[in-house]
């Protein structure tokens, strides 16, 4: 239905007699709840407010509140159990998530529960969500203190807004329409209601069109998901598209040309129809994507490449009896569907080669040091001699820039604080090196060497001692198959903290946008 038609229908309804306005309010409320549900399904942070905004005088509003209340019980129980380390927490939280959005106030409680369980990264994530929705909470100072306690690796300024700002959220109005308004006011209210309903319907239509993203869109919009996407695509390509589909290329050609031997046919049947049914394997991969990257991704309906892939898998599955009867048309169809899946494989190959990379160069390293020096303690270190050495060639790593900066800032901060506690000379050197491995891969090592005699070992970095400030670093590095070690210093330096990444070897993809350094730690 077009927007014009919706407006027309609503306008006609508004001109009716008797219970028409009431019906409009109910209809609008139903649509508002539908919209709220869509936002919930997409995982939008403020979906809760959309539920609350459905007028409580309507049937939809009452249903919305009942769901929120039911979910709230699950969420609160889940958070309490999680804080206690009880494994039933997951079930309760899932029940909540299956019912309705969580009251965003609970993000703070969830952050505290994560902190209690030693999950600093998640704690920070939930504090961020809380503050995104309540930028100027009354307990701002308390949260700042809690964030600071999560470790010196985290600057509260990176989580908290730089200054208290008035909330942009308007209070939710839940005032029911007055029953005894004068006629003129009633007409204006009806007209406004029609306009609001029309706009709401238009919004729903737009949102429906935008429901879900393709994998390429999600990749483009959410660089933080790149490690997960790279992994999932890699597994799908290896297990399904290489070993079950790619492997039968020659058999498909032979069957199509009529020259296939019985063994070649048996080989194809075994790959396509032996073991786990092809459709179930496909479904398993799709579900893995959905579980890992959430409801924003819609591979089933929105993503044309995956839609074609699903059809091809389904048709291949249905071809078995005809292929076994040597049906010539089935052989043609086999070739077509095989080509469709090979095409999906090629598309996925292109996609993973476009995942975000970050250039590791002098600009980045000097920016990291300058940013850390702006902090209070590191900024007070005097008589500091800094050296930055980078290769001439461009070096990129498949690491989201925010994470790379987080890692490097923490390493540099740690070194500066150690130098500040040591006697001069206070020297810090950042050096980037690359090495070719026997596997043909290359590694990039960022070496932070300093002259402090304070003890630091690889083991102490990994034991997540908060006072070393490197718990977040090891967590971030693990996501990228990277590592951090401590080595004896060279060239007059006492020790070197070495951060190792695998180098991006493909043709250059999009280099990560460069946010201000202070926003990236």
């Amino acid at each position: 239905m077009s927007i014009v038609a919706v407006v027309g229908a609503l306008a006609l309804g508004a001109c009716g007699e008797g219970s028409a306005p009431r019906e409009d309010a109910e209809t609008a409320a139903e649509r508002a709840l539908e919209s709220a549900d869509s936002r919930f399904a997409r995982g939008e942070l403020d979906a809760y407010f959309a539920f609350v905004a459905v007028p409580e005088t309507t049937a939809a509003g009452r249903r919305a509140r009942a769901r929120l209340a039911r979910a709230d019980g699950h969420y609160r129980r889940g958070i309490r159990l999680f804080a206690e380390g009880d494994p039933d927490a997951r079930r309760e939280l899932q029940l909540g998530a299956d019912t309705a959005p969580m009251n965003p106030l609970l993000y703070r409680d969830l952050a505290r529960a994560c902190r209690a369980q030693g999950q600093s990264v998640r704690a920070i994530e939930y504090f961020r969500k809380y503050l995104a929705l309540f930028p100027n909470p009354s307990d701002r100072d308390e949260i700042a203190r809690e964030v600071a306690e999560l470790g010196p690796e985290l600057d509260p300024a990176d989580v908290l807004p730089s200054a208290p700002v008035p909330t942009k959220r308007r209070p939710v109005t839940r005032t029911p329409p007055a029953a005894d308004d004068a006629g003129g006011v009633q007409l204006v209210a009806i007209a406004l209601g029609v306009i609001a309903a029309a706009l709401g319907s238009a919004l729903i239509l737009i949102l429906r069109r935008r429901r879900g993203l393709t994998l390429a869109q999600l990749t483009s919009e959410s660089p933080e998901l790149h490690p997960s996407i790279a992994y999932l695509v890699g597994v799908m390509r290896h297990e399904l598209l290489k070993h079950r589909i790619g492997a039968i290329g020659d058999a498909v050609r032979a069957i199509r040309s009529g020259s296939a031997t019985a063994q070649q046919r048996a080989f194809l049947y075994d790959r396509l129809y032996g073991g786990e049914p092809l459709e179930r394997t496909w479904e398993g991969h799709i579900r893995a994507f959905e579980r890992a990257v959430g409801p924003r991704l819609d591979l089933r309906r929105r993503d044309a490449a995956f839609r074609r892939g699903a059809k091809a898998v389904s048709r291949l599955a249905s071809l078995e009896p005809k292929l076994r009867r040597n049906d010539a048309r089935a052989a043609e169809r086999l070739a077509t569907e095989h080509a469709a899946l090979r095409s999906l494989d090629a598309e996925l190959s292109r996609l993973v080669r476009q995942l975000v990379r970050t250039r590791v160069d002098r600009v980045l390293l000097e920016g990291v040091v300058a940013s850390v020096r702006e902090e209070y303690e590191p900024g007070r270190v005097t008589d500091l001699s800094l050296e930055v050495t980078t290769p001439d060639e461009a070096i990129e790593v498949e690491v989201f820039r925010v994470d790379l900066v987080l890692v490097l800032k923490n390493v540099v901060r740690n070194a500066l604080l150690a130098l500040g506690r040591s006697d001069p000379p206070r020297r810090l050197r950042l050096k980037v090196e690359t090495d070719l491995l026997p596997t043909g891969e290359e590694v990039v090592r960022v070496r932070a060497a300093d002259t402090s005699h304070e003890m630091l070992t690889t083991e102490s970095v990994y034991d997540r001692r908060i006072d070393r400030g490197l718990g977040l670093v090891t967590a971030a590095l693990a996501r990228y198959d990277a590592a951090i070690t401590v080595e004896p210093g060279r060239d007059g330096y006492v020790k070197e903290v070495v951060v190792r990444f695998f180098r991006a070897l493909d043709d250059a993809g999009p280099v990560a946008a460069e946010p201000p350094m202070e926003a990236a730690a």
Partner: protein
Amino acid sequence: MKPVLLVVEDAIEYAEFARLFLSDVADLRTAQSGAEALAVLGRDHVDAVLMDLRFDRSPREALIGNVDDLAKELFGGDRERAARYMQDQQGALIVAEIRARGHKQPIVFVHDFPGRRLSNLRRLYGEVFAVPSFDAAAIRQILGLRPTAA
């Protein structure tokens, strides 16, 4: 006489593929580990090698490479991650060992390597090739394999 192709993998998929689509142009030998491959190369005449990359079905003790050295060098001492890496990259580690023993046969991977990585492998080990998917015609062309008169 047909040239001899050694198929190295942790299962039987490459060998099955080779038996069905390459046996008309090559005599096949198989090996399911780096040690077996080195034994065949040391014992028999081999003209080329078809190499799997990932050996995730091999027992870890059968893998080429030193898990402690790799853990120390690349993974901050984490032996578990180093062992997984050895499985994932086993084919390339076997190639390193093959070349270290002086065997110079051309080697073909069935893998979608980035261009620079393939260049690196060639720089390190000479004649190393890759086809992105199982494709008998491409492998024949790379290795110059042609049907011989009976």
